[in-house]
């Protein structure tokens, strides 16, 4: 609790004690009215002096109709009508509610900032042989900083000395440790887990990943959602409307009664009007809706999903179309051996021959074959390597003639090759002039891709569409493997824009189209879509800049997760709007009919607010 909150707590306890004493003495001693009034005024002033003061200042500054004004009018009215204890109690419960709200908001604020606790406080640099800690803002580009085990990396850079394991959980939401060594690029916000490393900085602190991300989250409030704007507008009309209704209740009804010849019962109607005022405060809505969005954005952030504004949460929750790029989004974007076919010798043997023969090559496909082999290459087993451009490699492996390459090479060595039906690049292997089989190298689909698309369907997405620049064979194979509804292949960047426009026209009102890409080549489409999601954005400023939603790592499951988070968030928002407005309207009606008294009014105001705030905080746990 802050000092202010503690002071309020003391005032609440004191006023509650005094009020209880008042109630007891009133009943036991049957004091005269004047004495009783004086007695009750003490707790009332203790608990309500600041409200009265604020209300007075509000009127002076032309700010009527705020909650202080409402509370002041309601309680002073009650005192004039002789309801001293009610007036004190209303003030007391109002303050309890305010204190609770302030604590709840403070707590969720701390929770959210703890989730986003990636801002490093200091950087270590070496000066005159001594390690000193400085403000990271002062570190210039190209300086060497030292990060000990357990510390956060303050500034983006390249490791100049040392090896370590990094925990990237704060940035990506995944706590998979990442091994780094000299020459590797590292991002601020990661925690150095094991060894001491020295980093040559490549960016200023303000331009580093951690600062950028925090800036993004903190500025997310700028883009307000329709629900938030609705609430602001609602509050603007609602409070005055209730005040005038209260006035009508207090004046017009008794006047009407007098005219029609009945007893006006002024006291009764004024009391009902005052009850109206207590109910009318729009706090529950005004606080809980932005709190829900903020908690949603914070909760998503903890999962490595950065949402740039509450308007995107709103749009994301209506997602019906998901368009995505293939390479890097649903596939890993790196070549891997995806199969060995028509092999006459053992699969492992085949890969071993190919890996050894290609041991000297730097071609990505050779690398992927060596990767599939997995063991270190014993180069003494290879001799007489001959590379033929556009065909492949021939070499002596363990004294055997091995040819590794395409169809042309096979024809040259006289091997009877079999064509491959799979999508990707085929590498044929012949050993000793005999065809031994072929290796299929392709960009492999991410493990999670199939589940990711299924989850999207579960989350209510009607159509998943894959856009790719690749040829038909590869595109269709991948689309089938991951279960995409439609696929467009051999696209130029312009075509992607045209197709996205077509789908934008096709969708109905109130539906949203999401595009997911790597954020580099897809920037025009990302900005064209209702919500553009950039994936694998860690370390890519361009992607972070371009997209509305940024996935820090490249897990496609995060797409459906972000839609789910937005849905949950919006559900809570609607729950709060309906609940708060509903309870208030019911209480207003009951207040007008005289069924609800001051105590019910206090619940309608403070109780509803507390429940709405508690409900909002649920959005934090996505």
């Amino acid at each position, binding site marked *: 609790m802050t000092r202010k909150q503690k002071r309020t707590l003391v005032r609440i306890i004191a006023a509650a004690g005094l009020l209880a004493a008042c109630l007891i003495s009133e009943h036991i001693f049957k004091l005269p009215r004047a004495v009783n009034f004086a007695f009750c005024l003490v707790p009332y002033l203790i608990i309500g002096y600041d409200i009265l003061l*604020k209300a007075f*200042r509000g009127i002076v*500054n032309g*700010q009527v109709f*705020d*909650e202080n004004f409402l509370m002041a009018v309601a309680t002073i009215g009650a005192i004039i009508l002789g309801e001293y204890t009610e007036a004190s109690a209303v003030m007391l419960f109002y303050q309890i509610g*305010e204190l609770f*709200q*302030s604590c709840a*908001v403070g707590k*969720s*604020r701390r929770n*959210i900032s703890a989730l986003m606790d990636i801002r490093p406080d200091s950087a270590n640099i070496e000066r005159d042989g001594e390690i000193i800690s400085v403000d990271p803002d002062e570190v210039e580009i190209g300086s060497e900083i030292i990060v000990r085990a357990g510390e956060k990396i303050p500034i983006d850079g390249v490791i100049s000395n040392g090896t370590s394991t990094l925990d990237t959980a704060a940035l990506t939401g995944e706590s998979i440790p990442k091994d780094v060594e000299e020459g590797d690029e590292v991002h601020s916000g990661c925690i150095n887990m094991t060894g001491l490393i020295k980093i040559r900085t490549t960016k200023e602190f303000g331009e580093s990943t951690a600062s950028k991300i925090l800036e993004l*989250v*903190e*500025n*997310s*409030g*700028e883009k307000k959602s329709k629900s938030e704007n609705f609430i*602001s507008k609602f*509050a603007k009309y609602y409070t005055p409307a209730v005040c005038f209704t209260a006035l009508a209740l207090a004046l017009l009804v008794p006047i009407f009664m007098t005219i029609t010849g009945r007893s006006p019962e002024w006291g009764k109607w004024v009391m009902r009007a005052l009850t109206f005022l207590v109910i009318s405060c*729009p*706090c529950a809505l*005004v*606080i809980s809706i*932005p*709190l829900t969005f*903020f908690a949603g954005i914070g909760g998503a952030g903890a999962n490595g999903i950065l949402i740039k504004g509450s308007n995107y949460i709103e749009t994301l929750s209506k997602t019906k179309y998901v368009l995505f790029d293939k390479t890097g989004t649903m596939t890993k974007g790196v070549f891997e051996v995806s199969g060995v076919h028509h092999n006459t010798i053992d699969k492992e043997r085949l890969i071993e021959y190919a890996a050894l023969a290609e041991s000297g090559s730097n071609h990505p496909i050779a690398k992927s074959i060596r990767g599939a082999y997995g063991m270190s290459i014993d180069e003494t087993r290879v001799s007489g390597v001959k590379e033929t451009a556009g065909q492949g490699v021939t070499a002596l492996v363990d004294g055997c003639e091995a040819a590794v390459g395409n169809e042309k090479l096979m024809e040259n060595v006289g091997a009877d090759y079999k064509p491959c039906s799979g999508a990707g690049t085929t590498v044929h292997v012949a050993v000793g002039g005999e065809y031994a089989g072929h290796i299929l190298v392709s960009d492999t689909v991410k493990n999670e891709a199939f589940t990711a698309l299924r989850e999207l369907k579960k989350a209510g997405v009607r159509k998943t569409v894959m856009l790719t620049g690749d040829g038909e064979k590869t595109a269709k194979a991948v689309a089938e493997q991951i279960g995409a509804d439609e696929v467009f292949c051999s696209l130029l960047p312009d075509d992607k824009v045209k197709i996205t426009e077509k789908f934008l026209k096709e969708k109905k009102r109130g539906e949203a189209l999401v595009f997911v890409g790597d954020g580099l080549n897809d920037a025009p489409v990302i900005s064209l879509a209702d919500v553009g999601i950039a994936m694998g954005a860690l370390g890519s400023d361009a992607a972070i800049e371009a997209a509305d939603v940024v996935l820090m790592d490249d897990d496609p499951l995060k797409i459906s997760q972000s839609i789910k988070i937005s849905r949950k968030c919006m559900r809570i928002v609607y729950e709060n709007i309906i609940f708060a407005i509903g309870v208030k309207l019911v209480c207003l009606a009951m207040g007008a009919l005289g069924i609800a008294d001051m105590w019910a009014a206090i619940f309608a105001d403070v109780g509803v607010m507390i429940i709405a705030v508690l409900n909002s905080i649920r959005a934090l746990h996505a």
Partner: protein
Amino acid sequence: MKKSYKIEVDCANCANKMESAANSIDGIKNASVNFMALKMNVEFEENADVKAVMKEVLKKCRKVEPDCEIYI
């Protein structure tokens, strides 16, 4: 030019009031208050005297919400 200020305010409604108060000041292109982050992000008009403008903003905000604070 854009600048971000730390603020102190008690309730969300008051934050909304501060926002509209700040937006009514000359020299401010757009101001937005993030109640949850307790930040006021201000975009100034070109050639605006930032210090003088922010003084005005604080004055106006104090008028609508006496309890508020902007750390200029």
